């Protein structure tokens, strides 16, 4: 598996070529290079996957080492990759879904003046994510982690003449760096306590740490994960990130970036197993985020904003899963989500493209007849996101909820079930508002070109059939595939009871989801309700303004730092400089008093040397 590094190098090379030679190559050649790099990387990843599949489960983990990165005192590190069943899944998602999004972008970005730059950034994004998921130690994880943050910054702010895009990009970067710092601190503690940062080194020595140390490490890692994966209250950057071009949103929300946090916890499970408080925290905030974001998504009018909050909500489910040690279920949902979320965003992109940039759902409606392919594929994505029985999201979400119940997390399960009802409600509200009823805009909608619709169809197939990888009560290929990863260290495997299906719970959520679809159809499908009942308006206002989290965060952090910075600046001008200039004036006066005939700096220097000399002599004679 030494060759697996090629999967990383392909998009890196593509990005470099597009950046340096993009102009001279032209649009077409640049898109061939970058999209081709992703296609090849995907084929390579499939080959890695197949080779892995041909081996007995116990031998499916590889740790090829390439060079020594640094050896400085107690810090010693090699550059190596970890290719095992868990990273293999991510290799497939990042390159596979990434490839489809690249392909789609050829159509979507067709008229953009900075086409080549866009593809260079896309490849960079994929490269960064691949580094993140294949690193074999926490430091290189952080390298990928930081690079993902950078690429997202570049892409969110891609339309840099829009002030909103620029400020969204900055918000994303600063919040992500705050998360990076969490991981960095965790690394310090690991270096100090264990002297190790490689996964294998750390995971096999966790028992030598005190429980307080492990909890602290886990919380710091969680800080990084929560920032990247948009967990409450660090989620505020993600909805703003839709300021980037729509394929970027798809990339951020589905194939790269936000899944990094889930990956980190799934990878570092021995740490979270040894840190039960942190793990409960992960699950609790996850469940809360799932419900919290779903309620916000209910009332937004911007099509991309609804999907963005839907991602925050779905990530909440994944964190709930990894928090209760249901790692395989969490990764299962992550994979299914990658399909249906990429599908929803690209579908939304197709709608926006058709309406020449319109994103307000109040000006859509009735698009079913104009965009038939987008309509049908979007319907599959919607059903999957809602968890309608027998679509992919149904299997993966129920896997998580079932394990929550079986491991005795009744309240988390309940919150998850309520959030499931809202999930179905917000996504079908979106679907009906966009595609049903009558067209409320004034444009001439048209279906997108095949380069955009083919990826939609492929993703729709995934969103339709992917769930059958793990059918409750029959088979669970995800559990099987990941078993070697999760049996290596303590804490990876759930008790048998948790993996048995709870038919009653499944039936309950299914009924709730179908009820939500029915409610959505009555409220938004048959005719659009313009007026809200009086009693609901205050609630609507709070939800529409996203519980004012942005404003609170702004007031607390941005305001404080701004004030501090202004104070420091004032201090610099008045106090520090004032004292110095005062002394300078004093010295000058003194110099002038002592040497009235002399002027010029060098002479004052001479005088100073003289005085210094006197001090020297005085010292030497006195001591």
């Amino acid at each position, binding site marked *: 598996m030494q060759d697996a590094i090629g999967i990383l190098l392909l998009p890196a090379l593509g990005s470099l070529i597009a*950046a340096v030679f993009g102009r001279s190559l032209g649009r077409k050649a640049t898109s061939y290079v970058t999209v081709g790099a992703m296609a090849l990387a995907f084929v390579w990843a499939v080959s890695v996957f197949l080779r892995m599949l041909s081996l007995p489960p116990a031998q499916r983990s590889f740790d090829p080492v390439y*060079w020594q*990165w*640094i*050896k*400085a*005192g*107690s*810090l*010693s590190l*090699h550059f190596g990759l970890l290719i095992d069943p868990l990273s293999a899944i991510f290799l497939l998602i990042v390159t596979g879904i990434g490839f489809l999004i690249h392909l789609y972008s050829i159509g979507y970005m067709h008229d953009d003046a900075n086409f080549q*730059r866009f593809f260079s950034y896309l490849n960079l994004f994929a490269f960064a994510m691949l*580094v993140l998921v294949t690193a074999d*130690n926490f430091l290189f994880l952080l390298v*990928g*982690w*930081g*690079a993902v943050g*950078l690429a997202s*910054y570049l892409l969110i702010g891609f339309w*840099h*003449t829009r002030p909103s895009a*620029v400020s969204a990009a*900055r918000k994303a970067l*600063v919040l992500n*760096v*705050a998360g*990076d*710092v969490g991981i*960095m*601190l965790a690394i*310090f503690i690991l*270096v*100090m306590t*264990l*002297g*190790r940062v490689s*996964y*294998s*080194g*750390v995971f096999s020595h966790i028992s030598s740490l005190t429980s307080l140390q492990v909890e602290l490490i886990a919380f710091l890692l969680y800080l990084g994960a929560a920032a990247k994966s948009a967990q409450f209250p660090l989620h505020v950057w993600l909805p703003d990130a839709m300021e980037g071009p729509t394929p970027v949103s798809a990339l951020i929300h589905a194939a790269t970036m936000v899944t990094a946090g889930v990956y980190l916890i799934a990878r570092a499970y021995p740490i979270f197993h040894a840190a039960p408080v942190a793990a409960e925290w992960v699950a609790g905030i996850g469940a809360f985020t799932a419900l919290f974001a779903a309620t916000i998504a209910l009332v937004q009018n911007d099509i991309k904003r609804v999907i963005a909050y839907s991602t925050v909500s779905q990530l909440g489910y994944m964190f709930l899963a990894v928090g209760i040690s249901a790692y395989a279920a969490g990764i299962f949902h992550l994979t299914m989500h990658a399909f249906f979320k990429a599908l929803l965003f690209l579908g939304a992109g197709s709608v926006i493209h058709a309406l020449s940039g319109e994103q307000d759902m109040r000006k859509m409606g009735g698009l079913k007849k104009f965009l038939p392919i987008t309509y049908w594929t979007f319907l599959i994505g919607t059903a999957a996101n809602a968890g309608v029985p027998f679509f992919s999201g149904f299997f993966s979400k129920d896997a998580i909820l079932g394990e929550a119940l079986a491991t005795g997390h009744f309240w988390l399960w309940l919150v998850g079930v309520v959030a499931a009802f809202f999930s179905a409600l917000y996504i079908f509200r979106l679907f009906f508002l966009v595609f049903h009823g009558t067209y409320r805009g004034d444009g001439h909608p048209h279906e997108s070109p095949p380069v955009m619709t083919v990826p939609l169809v492929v993703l729709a197939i995934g969103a339709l059939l992917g769930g059958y990888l793990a059918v409750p009560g029959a088979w669970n290929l995800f559990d099987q595939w990941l078993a070697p990863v999760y049996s290596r260290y303590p804490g990876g495997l759930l008790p048998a009871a948790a993996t048995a299906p709870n038919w009653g719970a499944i039936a309950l959520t299914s009924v709730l989801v179908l009820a939500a679809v029915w409610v959505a159809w009555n409220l938004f499908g048959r005719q659009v309700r313009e007026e809200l009942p009086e009693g609901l308006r205050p609630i609507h206002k709070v939800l529409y303004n996203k519980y004012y989290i942005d404003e609170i965060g702004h007031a607390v952090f941005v305001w404080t*730092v701004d004030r501090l*910075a*202004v104070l*420091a*600046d004032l201090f*610099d001008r008045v106090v*520090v*400089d004032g004292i*110095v200039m005062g002394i*300078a004036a004093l*010295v000058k006066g003194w110099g002038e008093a002592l040497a009235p005939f002399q002027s010029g*700096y060098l002479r004052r*220097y001479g005088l*100073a040397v003289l005085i*210094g000399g006197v*001090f*020297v002599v005085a*010292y*030497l004679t006195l001591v």
Partner: protein
Amino acid sequence: MLELLFFLPIIGALLLLLLPERAARGGAFIAALLTLAVSLVLIPSAFGHSGAYGMLSSVTWVEAWGVHWALGLDGLSLVLTILTALVTAVAIAWTPARPRTYYVLFLLLEAFSLGTFLAADLFVFYVFWEAMIIPAYLLIAGFGGPRRAKAAIKFLIYSLAPSLLMLVAIVTLGYEAFLQFGSWSFSLPVLQHLVLPTSVQMWVFAGFAIAFLVKIPAFPFHSWMPEAYAESPAPVTAMLSAVLSKTALYGFLRIALPLMPVAAHRFAPALGVIALASILYGALVALTQRDGKLVIGYSSLSHLGLVLLGIAALSYTGLEGAVLQMVNHGIYATALFLLFGVVEERMGTRDLQAMGGLEARGPILAGLFLITVLTALGLPGLQGFAGEITILTGVYLVQPVWAWIAVISVILAAAYFIRLFQKVAHGTAPSTDQPGGRPEIGGMQIALVAPLIVLMFVLGLYPNPVPRAVSRPLKSVTQSVGVAATTRATATSEVAGK
């Protein structure tokens, strides 16, 4: 060979006086390139010898005072020598033709900086330390911006006053050598063997430390910096920040720590507090500056504070990180100041509120500036990160609280550097922008900055050569200072999981 390294720029400066004015830039560039070539040729010699220095040349200079003209080269002086030669070569040719005096002074500045890095005798160190001030002062006073006069005076006063304290300290050491060995000596290898009473160590250490802290600069000794940086031409600012600041940090490693180990331990907490104050203070002030050059200037205050913190922690890893970051900062600070200089020239202003639109009008310049900014803000995988994480790890090993505080600056750095980049690159072009002019960077300048950009990636992906080069000199530093501080580090030392 060592003499050649030092005298090459001086000879170059003298020859420039004979050349016609228009050939001055080319001549200076060639002299700087030759110096760089010699510094690279010397790489093997730095590790050849088993003694303290890989290469040492010493001639008696003033016999009565025990002063030797002694230059020494080991891994530590080597990396800083190469850095100086590289930065000079890039910076000297950066701007289009200036008067001959400019290039003469520039080469002298290089020679004297090299002298401080190579000095193996404290007296020689002092001579170059003082000599360095003169070309720097004249470069600011003669070629600076509209408020250059005040800036130059401040720089001069600030540089000279503390040097006197350093002189006293040096003379004291020479006298102690006379008391203990029977003859005056300023030779660094000889002074290593001094046994100094704690009170003497304290005073001598303080004398050196104040001179060094002003030169870095560190809070609250930095108030010469904003004006000197702002008013100097961009290449001179680059030299001040990338090279001159390093002479002071180098002084801590070469002189203050090994010769006064007890005092180093006593002063370490104070140095740590000064370093932390510089780190946070610099970062906060950088957030508010409207002058883009000062954002970079205050970021340097913050970053060099981190280097100082690595030194103050007195752990081996911290010292290695400090040297690595000295090299890193030298490279990215040079690129930051030089590239921002081009932006300033193209837009006719340094006011961030008025700047903008670079990405649309000069994408190559904007791209190079972005890479540099990202390196400076410590993006993992690029050069700045490796130094930062090594320092923070080294600090964490002995002073976890310091590391917790220092790490805040990592977030602030992202905020002020991204603000800098966005103000310059995004939005619309300023009204002062030359409408007919070329907003893009020239081919010559791309070629000059290219090696720096390449190093940002190379040292980011493979920083190992720097710690390897300096491991022997730093081990001898930690031995002198006492290994007490590093036992925890060595206990956990291990090849990560392999």
